[in-house]
């Protein structure tokens, strides 16, 4: 290697090392377990949060951990978190918010439930629970950090069923307009997650493992989590993430040795083993047969009612009704849909031809992700 080239390589290395060294990582980790009897105790969140805090410290984060937090404590923690984010060098701070505990969606807002929330009426939710978009996310965005990461292991169930029947489905909803942010959920929007029978909830258990793998981009970490959670839950829990980030982020960069593993969950519980057995009911769906069935859904000579029945049958080929589907125009993704939304659309379209461009199957043959063209 000539001298100028060697010099350039050294210079680039120096600059990138310097950039990493200058990056400040700040995290707020909350785990709420000790809820009242009415709301329902959760065995895992405090363990989840404690293990997550240790894992994040190994990844270079300055961590603020609170467990079994009241509303006032959560508000105060968010304020301190904002101060720390704002104190860092502009555009060189990565903020991470992790929450494990009860959560729910109400009027297009995701709420985290403090341990002292005594919700009796629907109106109480906005007063007694912590809004993610309005408080956590907006504070993180105001702080001018390079990247904001929000991880919500909170879609367990609706903790106030008696007072909030009108909320409909449980779980958290997807956040729109999370600019410059990566938001990860334990389940797809509007569905509920497994608490797990071990030390950690299933989602955090797998997240801790994936975060520990060196050289994985944040997108790869959460894909690894989705694959493993889907497998271990017997294809019942489909994790979700949405990203508006442009830069790269590694919990552990590739050239570093993996730190000591700090949290490993107990062996798979019997419930998971049962699901594994259930999963043996394999689905055999080839690309060609699926194309035919999807195309037939648009066939106007078949009565609409029969096509509706066929639609329900095809939906069972997917791991979950909200499995990701991409409609393509040439090499570009035109739209991002869920499986059930795609099928609802197909039965209303004029006669069309469906061509599958990519398909990802689970171990049992069910469809995890699908890309197709509609012509």
């Amino acid at each position: 290697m000539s001298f100028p080239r060697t010099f350039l390589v050294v210079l680039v290395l120096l600059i990138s090392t310097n950039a990493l060294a200058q990056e400040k990582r700040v995290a707020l980790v909350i785990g709420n377990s000790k809820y009242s009897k009415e709301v329902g105790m959760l065995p895992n969140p405090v363990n989840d949060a404690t293990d997550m805090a240790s894992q994040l410290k190994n990844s270079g984060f300055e961590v603020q951990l609170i467990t079994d937090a009241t509303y006032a404590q959560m508000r105060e923690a968010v304020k301190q978190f904002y101060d720390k984010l704002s104190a860092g060098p502009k555009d060189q701070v990565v903020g991470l918010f992790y929450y494990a505990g009860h959560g729910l969606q109400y009027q297009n807002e995701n709420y985290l439930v403090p341990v002292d929330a005594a919700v009796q009426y629907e109106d109480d939710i906005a007063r007694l629970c912590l809004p993610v978009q309005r408080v956590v996310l907006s504070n993180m965005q105001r702080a001018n950090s390079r990247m904001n990461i929000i991880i919500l292991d909170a879609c367990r169930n609706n903790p106030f069923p008696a007072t909030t029947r009108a909320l409909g489905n449980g779980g958290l909803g997807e956040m729109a307009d999370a600019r410059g942010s990566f938001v990860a959920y334990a389940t797809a929007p509007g569905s509920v997650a497994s608490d797990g029978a071990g030390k950690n909830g299933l989602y955090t258990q797998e997240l801790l493992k994936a975060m520990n793998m060196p050289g994985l981009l944040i997108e790869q970490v959460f894909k690894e989590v989705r694959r493993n959670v889907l497998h271990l839950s017997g294809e019942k829990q489909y994790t979700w993430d949405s990203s508006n980030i442009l830069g790269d982020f590694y919990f552990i960069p590739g050239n570093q040795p993996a730190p000591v593993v700090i949290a490993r969950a107990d062996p798979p519980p019997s419930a998971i083993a049962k699901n594994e057995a259930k999963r043996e009911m394999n689905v055999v769906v080839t690309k060609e047969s699926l194309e035919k069935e999807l195309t037939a859904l648009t066939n106007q000579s078949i009565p609409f009612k029969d096509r509706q029945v066929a639609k329900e049958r095809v939906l069972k080929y997917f791991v979950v009704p909200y499995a990701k589907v991409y409609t393509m125009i040439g090499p570009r993704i035109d739209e991002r849909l869920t499986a059930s939304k795609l099928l609802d659309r197909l039965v209303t379209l004029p006669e069309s031809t469906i061509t599958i461009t990519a398909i990802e199957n689970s171990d049992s043959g069910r469809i995890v992700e699908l890309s197709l063209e509609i012509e």
Partner: protein
Amino acid sequence: MRRIIFLNFILLLLSSSAFAQTELPEDLKEYFKKSILAKVKRLEHYITLIADKSKDEGLRKSSINQAVELFEDENKKVQISSMKNGVQTVVDRPVRTYFDRLYAITADRVDITFYEVIQLTDVRLGPDKRYYATAYIFQDTKIYYNSHSDIPDYSDRTEKAIDITIKPDTTIVGDKTVVLYPAKLGNINVKETKSPK
């Protein structure tokens, strides 16, 4: 004269700053065109289907939801016009109301067809980093209060302009973050309504 030239110059400056003149890459331009046309064609299909009382009611109702999803949001307005004794009346309706009323027209038969291909303006990049275009559709409406008659009780020809907005968004596909350009319909305005000769 000099003042007029100066004013024109200011107007030119203002308009060029409102919409950037940066040329879009050919492949993106082509994609925008295909994506917008696909959505407008779907709208035309749903308008015809929702109005068609000979079709399955479940299909017509499902089509209302599908049609609404083509729009940026349900607050967007659809202008509808009618001609009576040579006088044009124009009314604005929120999108879902428009489709609900189209479904429920009290007539024996409603035929809505499109007599010309969709026309599309160039896609422009706005100062808000969104892309904008306008699509034109040409609609023939015939309403029969007596299904046995071949002569419609009401008919008109309307040209409508549809605002299109593309707000870039990102998603994770596999291990990569990909930028999406979802085209959404906005307000639909009547440009011209004529009674057929």
